[in-house]
């Protein structure tokens, strides 16, 4: 990930937006000395020697002057810039002490602030490929949307199939294709958020790329990571992929309708999950039969209310402070 804009080195695309690089907002891959036209909105002074320190502060509002395909899809760009910075030639040591994921985490905080501003519960759904994530999500929004308006961000390496499945339910969805990337990052999600009217929504589901490794490290600004494990997988997956189950707040044990046909040991699986994360909540359900789904909806509603309560308490504190100073 390029942490100036967060784009992956592959060809990430967000539906409805176009982030093709080699373009405007921070000039990856320039050769020194070549000329280029900038057609996007904000004008800027060209620095001598192409030091390119005019990159924007990422309000996520730049004009897409870049390639936009017929579907309006967006293309993220290439890797880090080949900047040429005039500088000193004296050898010296510099203490940096910066987190490698510092920029992703800063974007995640921007997303989180947006979610709080819109009273939106954001859930980051993580699992292996084939755990039944999209089926679970489709049923969830079908049964939930009358009570709680939902929106969905879908992450996959390629295709808009999953977003199409979600949109068929009438719920707004944006597909992010990560190209060669193995996870969503906070910057991609920030761009996807531009495609929604967030005000009417109450729950945002972010379906991450099916991968139990990489998405664990990348905060997207969500309130909770939700790990989905199906009983057709091994019960020791929480031990094999401990980072993910450690990062998640709840584990959904899916496809329980198949338990009579399998040797899957539910108690052992839950025990393993609690070894890596003693606080993890567990909900057993089947998106096919509907068993346990109400418990999942109750969990969502409880978390949404907790989020609103936290915000209400903060607002009341501010009101009290204003009244006091009147």
């Amino acid at each position, binding site marked *: 990930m390029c*942490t100036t804009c967060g784009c992956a080195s592959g060809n990430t695309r967000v539906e409805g937006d176009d982030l093709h690089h080699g373009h405007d907002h921070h000039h990856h891959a320039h050769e020194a000395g070549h000329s280029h036209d900038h057609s996007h909105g904000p004008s800027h002074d060209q620095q001598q020697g192409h030091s390119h320190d005019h990159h924007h502060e990422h309000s996520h509002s730049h004009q897409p002057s870049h390639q936009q395909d017929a579907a309006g899809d967006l293309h993220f760009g290439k890797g880090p810039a080949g900047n040429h910075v005039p500088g000193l030639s004296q050898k010296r040591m*510099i203490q940096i002490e910066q987190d*490698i994921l510092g920029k992703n985490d800063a974007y995640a905080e921007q997303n989180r602030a947006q979610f709080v501003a819109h009273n939106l519960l954001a859930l980051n759904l993580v699992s292996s490929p084939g755990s039944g994530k999209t089926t679970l999500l489709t049923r969830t929004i079908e049964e939930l949307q009358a009570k709680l308006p939902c929106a969905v961000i879908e992450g996959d390496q390629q295709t808009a199939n999953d977003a199409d499945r979600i949109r068929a339910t009438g719920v707004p969805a944006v597909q992010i294709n990560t190209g060669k990337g193995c996870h969503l990052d906070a910057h991609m999600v920030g761009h996807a958020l531009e495609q929604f009217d967030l005000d009417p929504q109450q729950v945002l589901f972010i379906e991450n790329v099916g991968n139990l*490794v990489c998405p664990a490290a990348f905060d997207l600004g969500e309130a909770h990571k939700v790990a989905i494990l199906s009983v057709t997988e091994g019960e020791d997956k929480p031990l094999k992929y401990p*980072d993910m189950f450690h990062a998640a707040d709840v584990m959904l044990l899916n496809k329980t309708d198949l338990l009579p046909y399998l040797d899957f040991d539910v108690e052992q699986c839950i025990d393993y999950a609690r070894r890596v994360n*003693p606080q993890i909540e567990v909900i057993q359900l089947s998106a096919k039969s509907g068993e346990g789904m109400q418990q999942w909806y109750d969990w969502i509603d409880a978390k949404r209310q907790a989020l609103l309560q936290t915000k209400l308490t903060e607002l009341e504190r501010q009101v009290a402070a204003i009244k006091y100073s009147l």
Partner: protein
Amino acid sequence: MHEMSLAEGVIQVLEDNARSQGFSRVKKVSLEIGRLSYVEIESMRFCFEAVCRDSIAAGAELEIIEITGRGWCHNCEKQFDYSARYDPCPHCQGYQVQMVSGDEMRIKELEVE
């Protein structure tokens, strides 16, 4: 292969610092990587070399300082060496363990010119 993303993140931090601190070459990069972090060290070395090639850190030496994991048991109120997230406390065999160190992914210092 999120190490590729992480390595690109490192280069970007270097380039930001090159602008703010006025240097044009990075000779050496020191990273602090916890043994229980999200980084596979050999993969990081491979990816770092690949993404450095056309950057201000081309040919830079990569030093990785590994940080051992330490856990804190809530029952025993003691610290101990922690080698995996599913390790129990060695004193009570319980799993009420919090990581104290071992998940670091930090750029510590640079040698530049």
